[in-house]
């Protein structure tokens, strides 16, 4: 069993996040905060926004397409029959379309910077492809195909995604993950995948290419952060349909208004009808809808999570069952020493001393925890023991091959020349046998006992010069539940999410840890098949399941789960199967992913409600302006006492356009989300965006009217 954790999660190291991004790190207060936004981004996005005036771009957004057509129509009308009013209405309708494009451009622009830095990593490299006969040939990276074998040596860039089939190497993956600590990649097992664009730091590996050029992980990342591969999600399509049908309703209402108006004695100017239509249709949400979606993905990217589709982000908001691996997620993946079990005939002190000696060179949390345990249990002379070994000591570091660490002491040391080893039971026992030692049934029993209780047994052994090696005893490592987990699970419960802990532990240990952590359910002695079966069972019951995983044997479960977050350190099979990849490999991030998913939906709902609520005030502004000439009694509806009919209509149009710009920051940041039960969330958001949406335009339109009525030809 490994005593090191090759990749430590890097909590709170968001890449590319601005300093004022309060929520880059784990969100302590349970709030999902916002991405950054600065007015400068608006200016930078302006050229792109202007390009988006192209109707071929607009046709993707049915609501904005109507505004576009309205802009063309009013422009023609303003040219045919010029007046200050007609020209201003036409201009502001174009501004409405422009602002919609601006929102989208700003959202996309934020991803583009990240994409550029990723592109640099993809810079053309050459690959050393192995021919069938074992000789090498130089080819350009884009010419590699699935199944090709390439050699990568220290200092070279991995030319494409693939699995290591031969060798071990440390790899710098910072180009992709932003994490600067190198990771170990080796053939076989769950750490065999390498990503194109990363750099091998040491050794030589042979990689079998698993992605066609253009379809690599890096390519997909670039496409994702740029938003270029964005397809509309189911919820987005459903909302689009609702908005389109509302647009149709208003189109009907406005088109039929003309015969009614004519019947009543006076047809309306077309410019005014177009203005009315544009004010009524849900332009606010229509203009911001795609920006909200892009920004949602972007918020994930800022947390180093890549969603392979917007659908996955939305599904995250719906998840109601969370499958979490115990180790590394609920408990510190780094286990801690909790007991020393001496072999028969070995004193407790002797074992403690040897265990400590074997661990001083071990900088892993496990190693440090052994030192801490021994020092805590023996206060008298920790310093003496530590210095005893100095002078003639050779550290034997942990390697992936030996799976143990220790020290070799020279003849000058107090106990004479000897070697001390500590490590996974099987490896150390094999070392003991190789060094002439024998097995000890009592130690084997202790190892089994620790393992059965869910702990990890480490065996400590020593070989004095000339004598056969002997086993000294067992160090029991145990998982400790992370601080704050119980609170997080309680929070999840409030959000309506049930947590299920998955562990290979036996039921007794599993239940004990589950109680400590406060999870709702536990699957003990779980095999990957159990995981898959559980996911299927939950889904059959109508639940949406999220899980994290990194191993190849997690792949089926990741693929089956509605939200499968593959760890960036995981195998390419896992990354292929999941619909999100967490580059930080931090399994607790699922909680944030869920919150971001919810936030995305809430932002859409809030702006839709706001957009519709705005119509009330617009009716009060425009209808009296339209009909007061016909029926003076309708003046009574002019509660805002707007200056003139032209000023009223124009104020509504200008308000309608400006509100889009005003809401771009909200669309990009997302509405704040605080875990709470559904009814109180609904009440709050209805108050803020429903009632606020009714009131805001009354104030805004009146203010604009005061300003616009100063214009000649309007006031």
């Amino acid at each position, binding site marked *: 069993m490994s005593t090191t954790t090759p990749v430590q999660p890097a909590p709170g190291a968001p890449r590319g996040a601005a300093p004022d991004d309060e929520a880059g790190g784990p969100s302590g207060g349970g709030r999902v905060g916002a991405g950054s936004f600065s007015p400068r981004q608006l200016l930078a996005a302006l050229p792109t926004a202007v390009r988006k005036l192209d109707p071929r771009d607009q046709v993707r957004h049915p609501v904005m397409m109507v505004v576009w057509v309205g802009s063309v129509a009013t422009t023609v009308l303003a040219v045919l029959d010029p007046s200050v009013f007609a020209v201003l209405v036409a201009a502001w309708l174009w501004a409405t379309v422009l602002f919609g494009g601006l929102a989208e451009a700003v959202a996309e622009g934020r991803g583009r910077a990240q994409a550029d830095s990723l592109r640099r990593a993809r810079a053309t490299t050459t690959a050393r492809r192995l021919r069938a006969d074992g000789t090498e040939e130089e080819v350009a990276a884009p010419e590699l195909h699935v199944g090709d074998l390439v050699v990568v040596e220290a200092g070279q860039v991995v030319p494409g995604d693939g699995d290591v089939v031969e060798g071990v190497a440390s790899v710098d993956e910072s180009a992709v993950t932003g994490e600067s600590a190198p990771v170990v990649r080796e053939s076989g097992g769950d750490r065999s995948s390498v990503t194109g664009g990363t750099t091998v730091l040491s050794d030589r590996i042979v990689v079998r290419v698993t992605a066609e050029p253009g379809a690599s992980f890096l390519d997909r990342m670039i496409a994702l952060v740029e938003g270029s591969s964005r397809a509309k999600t189911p919820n987005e399509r459903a909302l689009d349909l609702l908005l389109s049908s509302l647009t149709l309703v208003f189109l009907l209402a406005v088109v039929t208004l003309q015969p009614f108006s004519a019947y009543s004695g006076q047809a309306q100017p077309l410019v005014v009808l177009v203005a009315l239509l544009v004010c009524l249709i849900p332009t606010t949400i229509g203009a911001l809808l795609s920006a909200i979606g892009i920004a949602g993905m972007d918020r994930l990217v800022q947390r180093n999570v890549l969603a392979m589709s917007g659908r996955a982000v939305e599904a995250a908001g719906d998840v109601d069952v969370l499958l979490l691996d115990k180790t590394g997620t609920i408990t510190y993946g780094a286990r801690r020493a909790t007991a020393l079990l001496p072999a028969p005939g070995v004193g407790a002190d002797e074992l403690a001393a040897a265990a400590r000696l074997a661990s001083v060179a071990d900088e892993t949390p496990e190693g440090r925890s052994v030192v801490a345990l021994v020092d805590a249990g023996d206060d008298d002379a920790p310093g003496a023991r530590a210095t005893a070994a100095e002078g003639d000591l050779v550290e034997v570091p942990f390697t992936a091959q030996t799976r143990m660490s220790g020290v070799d002491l020279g003849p000058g040391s107090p106990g004479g020349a000897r070697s001390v080893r500590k490590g996974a039971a099987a490896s150390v026992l094999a070392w003991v046998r190789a060094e002439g030692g024998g097995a000890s049934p009592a130690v084997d029993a202790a190892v089994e006992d620790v393992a059965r209780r869910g702990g990890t047994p480490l065996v400590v052994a020593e070989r004095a010069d000339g004598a056969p090696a002997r086993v000294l005893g067992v160090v029991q490592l145990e998982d400790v539940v992370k601080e704050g987990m119980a609170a997080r699970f309680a929070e999840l419960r409030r959000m309506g999410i049930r947590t299920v802990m998955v562990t290979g532990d036996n039921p007794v240990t599993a239940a004990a840890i589950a109680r400590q952590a406060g999870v709702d359910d536990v699957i003990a002695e779980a095999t990957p098949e159990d995981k898959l079966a559980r996911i299927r069972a939950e889904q059959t019951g109508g639940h949406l399941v999220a899980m994290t995983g990194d191993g190849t044997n997690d792949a089926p479960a990741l693929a089956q789960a509605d939200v499968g977050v593959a760890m960036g350190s995981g195998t390419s099979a896992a990354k292929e199967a999941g619909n999100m990849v967490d580059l930080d490999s931090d399994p607790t991030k699922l909680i944030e992913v869920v919150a971001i998913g919810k936030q995305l939906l809430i932002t859409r709902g809030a702006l839709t409600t706001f957009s519709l609520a705005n119509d009330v005030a617009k009716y009060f502004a425009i209808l009296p302006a339209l009909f007061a000439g016909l029926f003076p009694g309708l003046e009574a*509806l002019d509660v805002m006492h707007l200056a003139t009919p032209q000023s009223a209509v124009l104020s509504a149009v200008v308000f309608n356009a400006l509100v889009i710009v005003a809401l771009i920051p909200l669309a990009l940041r997302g509405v704040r989300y605080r875990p709470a039960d559904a009814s109180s969330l609904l009440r709050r*958001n209805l108050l803020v965006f429903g009632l606020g949406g009714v009131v805001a335009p009354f104030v805004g339109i009146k203010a604009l009217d005061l300003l616009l009525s100063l214009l000649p030809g309007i006031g």
Partner: protein
Amino acid sequence: MSDAAAGALQVAVLVAALLAAQGPLGAWIARSLSSTRHLALERAVYRVAGVDPDADMRWPVYARSVLVLSAVSVLLLYGLQRVQAALPLALGLPGVPAPTAWNTAVSFVTNTNWQSYSGETAMGHLVQAGGLAVQNFLSAAVGVSVAVALVRGFTRSRTDRLGSFWADLVRTCVRVLLPLSLVAALVLLLGGVVQNLAEPTTVTTLTGGEQTLVGGPVASQEAIKELGTNGGGFYNANSAHPFEGPSAWVSLLQVFLLLLIPFSMPAALGRLVGDRRQGHLLLAVMGGLWLLAVTAVTWAETAGRGLAPQAAGAAMEGKEVRFGEALSALFAASTTATSTGAVNSFHDSYTAAGGGVLLLNMMLGEVTPGGVGSGLYGMLVLAVVAVFLAGLMVGRTPELLGKKIGPRQMVLVALSVLTMPALLLVGAALTAGVPALVGASVQDAGPHGLSEVLYAYASAANNNGSAFAGFGAATTYQDTALGVVMLLGRFVPVVLVLALAGSLARQTAVPAGAGTLSTRSPVFGVLLAVVVVVVAGLTFVPALALAPLAEALS
């Protein structure tokens, strides 16, 4: 007792009676329609009709069955009217002209009961009892069947079956409508509503003039006219005719009858989905909006704006002068809120504001509480819209009664919600926009005339059937156009609702959790009510501003 107190008292009595009745009746409807047994009478009907009552239908089959039954009904009814002269019990009346026959056939099959003819002087007893009354039963039963099929979409999981239309139809008739009608007819008979198959009686009046009194099977038809939210009166004067509405308490009873089944459907829903509080919420939303309308109309009619109303104490012109203003207002608000269209006063004569509320009542889409069955499915469709907004605002893919609302559901719901406004606005705009049509049908000039046009098309598109009397509907164009509007206004939503039911039934039910938005909470109720009012309000405010609003504010 003051007028206001009397009005409040009769509303209170009515509400108490409805509250007491809706629970048991809803439970009975739910039980009848989820039964596994067939009654002997039902078996006989199935045998005669040659249908299999145990065939569990997919939604297209269910929809096709509804459409086939309705098409056959329209043809039969049309034929019956055309050849009336050759039939027995025709009272010597001639065959009905083609446009009127078409309009009437469609009108009764769609549960609209718009009458462009004059009741007793156009239709003989056979057509009235054998044609129109039969459709009163069938069209109401179709509404209940479609509503129940939609509810099955919510309750069933991973199936493409919605139940048997024939069993639903026959059971609604045999177990719900027939027994209720029988009791209601007897009570009406006791109250003085006539029931005979006699030839018209000619009497000499006090002044020496001659008057022909037409009797007929009135009580029996009256019962289902109200219970089935049909509204087609035996007499032209509808429930204002002394033979059809002989006394104040009978008039109040008629209001009770026409509200009874629509207000019981939420309870039936609650039973069928196993969540009675869900039924209570829908009942509260429907009832709240209905009460609001009753209050508004009563206020508008009694507040006494204008000279004549002040002199009379209320706007009494065209009202049920025998029973007072309050009962007229209550009847009018209820008949427009239930898609019944029966009247005991003439809506054309209401004040601009009062008439505007009646118009708006229909424009809400007939969901407060709406027609028999159609009110429930209409409300559920709007609940999907509300839940969609609400779901987004709490951060979950919206779900209603455990079923997710995705793009497919939204398409069906959006089209269904769009149908009525489209038919109403386009229909009314065509008439208002063509001077020849205005001249032929619109009696009054100015905003009141526009109200007449809007009212006619609101009534047709919503299958209500009541009318502003000033509107001349008996022209070939209006007969035809209104017939088309009624047909589309009924069956386009029916097909879409059944498709929705089919798409919902296929889904796995999502169990409710803490993150699920409760659709039984008061806050959702408020949202639903707001959606009902705002969707209609935003659509129709411009038109209303030119019609009742302009009239009321001038």
